[in-house]
């Protein structure tokens, strides 16, 4: 396997008033294509910041991020938005679905940025919903779905444009144990059967067990990595 994500000397410094906070400190990291990586660490260790940088949501203070051979830290804001639309899928802790749209319309959102026809968009969204087991809930609004179902809709939205990379920030943080297990199993399936590279931030060691590898971050530096026990 070749490295899909190559991170070199990555630093991120935030200015908060007069205070300068170094959230990430010279991080070096390679993530292979097809990997399922769990990123763990205490609060404030820089997990979400690292995830945001890999997902192209934020730009580093120093260092480089190369994804699929492209230096994303050098892209302009518009180019980065375009890159995100075709290369990365995002899953958040609180699902972040648009409440006024049905599940299908939510899933269809990333496809609005493509040249697909309305019929093709509808078809692709239906396939993505089928993949996450919610074909029969396509017309439901988020408020009519359980937390686990909403997160599965969010996963369908993340995969509908067939990105190489899935970036998940505490995807089970707001779910009960059973729903969390269902969501993690779904992620595992997407990784195993569809070859998606997944990077998942989690506090939960049980969730991390679903990943192939685990990385530990502490005070902005990688401190350990390891093979997860099979879930």
């Amino acid at each position: 396997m070749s490295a899909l994500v190559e991170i070199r000397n990555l630093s991120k410094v935030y200015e908060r008033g007069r205070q300068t906070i170094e959230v990430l400190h010279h991080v070096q990291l390679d993530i292979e294509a097809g990997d399922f990586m769990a990123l763990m660490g205490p609060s404030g260790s820089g997990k979400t910041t690292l995830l945001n940088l890999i997902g192209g949501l934020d730009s580093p203070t120093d260092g480089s991020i190369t994804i699929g051979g492209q230096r994303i830290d050098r892209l302009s804001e518009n180019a980065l938005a375009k890159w995100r639309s075709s290369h990365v899928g995002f899953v958040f802790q609180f699902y972040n679905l648009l409440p006024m749209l049905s599940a299908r319309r939510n899933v269809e959102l990333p496809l609005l940025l493509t040249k697909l026809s309305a019929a093709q968009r509808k078809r692709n969204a239906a396939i993505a919903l089928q993949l996450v087991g919610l074909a029969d809930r396509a017309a439901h609004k988020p408020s009519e779905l359980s937390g686990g179902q909403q997160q599965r809709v969010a996963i369908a939205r993340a995969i509908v444009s067939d990105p190489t990379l899935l970036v998940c920030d505490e995807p089970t943080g707001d779910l009960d144990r059973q729903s969390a297990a269902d969501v993690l199993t779904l992620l595992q399936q997407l990784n195993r059967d569809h070859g998606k590279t997944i990077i998942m931030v989690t506090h939960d060691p049980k969730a991390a067990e679903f990943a192939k590898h685990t990385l530990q971050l502490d005070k902005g530096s990688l401190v350990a990595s390891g093979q997860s026990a099979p879930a």
Partner: protein
Amino acid sequence: MKYLQLIWSAMFRRKTRTVFTLLSVLAAFLLFGLLDSVRSAFANAASSVAGVDRLVTVSKISFTMSLPKSLLSGIGALPGVARVTYANWFGGIYQDPKNFFANEAVADNFFDLYPEWQLSPAERAAFHNTRTGAVVGESLAKKFNWKLGDKIPLQATIFPQKSGGNTWTFDLVGIYRVSNPKQKNQESILFFNWDYFDEARAFGNGNVGWYITQVSDRNLAQQVADGVDALSANSDHETKTQTEQAFNAAFVSQYGDIGLIVGAIMGAVFFTLILLTGNTMAQAVRERVPELAVLKTIGFSNHSVLALLLAESVLLIVLGGAIGLVLAGVVVDAVRAAVGEAVPMTRVGAAIWLRGVGLMLLIGLIVGALPARRGMRLRIVDALAGR
């Protein structure tokens, strides 16, 4: 078009708030449609005399200035003139100023030019033979319960009598009717003999307020108007010949500049609308910060978010505004059908729609500008973190 569903859904995210905002936009544009219809009627009134059969000639300086009666023969001799008559505003008050109705001194042949006002031959004869005779419309007679033979005293506001008295007493000798229900408002006038008026008034003798000319052929209206005005060109009493509609408009305009009044009202209405809907849009964007961050996360550019929010704001105003203008059209048509020309209003046509849509787009952009800019400048990581 593929974004319409997204924009539409976002707009109705808070249904009650959106409906109330739409209602306020609707009300503003309903008012705009009605007032612009009135303003257009006044603006267009003076434009052309072509195609009309009655013309009104007034002083070019101001219709409140009188014209010499000597113009009568000159006007009557012009080619294309079938009949000519004259009248004078009297402005008398019956008992109390709040009883206002129009009252005019008119020439003996005045009713010949207004066949739509039906007066029996006997009453016409009585009007002709009674020096102090007066004729009123049926509606006015009913309003004050006047009967033939009644004496109607009017207090002069402009023209005292030579004798020094201020009360003019008229004998009611005729009641005219207007058969067209759309012109019933024309039954609210009192006419009396100009000869009596001219003999008895303290000043202004030999002058008339305005001339009314009936043309023999509508196609000659412009030619006759030009001919009438040429009679007094370069004199101290130059004239302006216009349609009755323009004359009525000028009469109403003496109470104020209609365009300015309408403009001021609409300015205040739209200013309030901008504040109200601007606040609504700002609130709507504030509530949707995480959702906008999600849109950006999945690849919507800053400019796409800006465009979406501006489109939402414009759609909100255009939707409410369009319904308002449609309603204005219905109301104007109903008013025109009910009272005819009594209230000068043009139909809500292409010109009003064009101005209305222009205003909708402008207001939509103004209202959406600041919230959309905020949405555009949103930093994804801060918005997702709730900062």
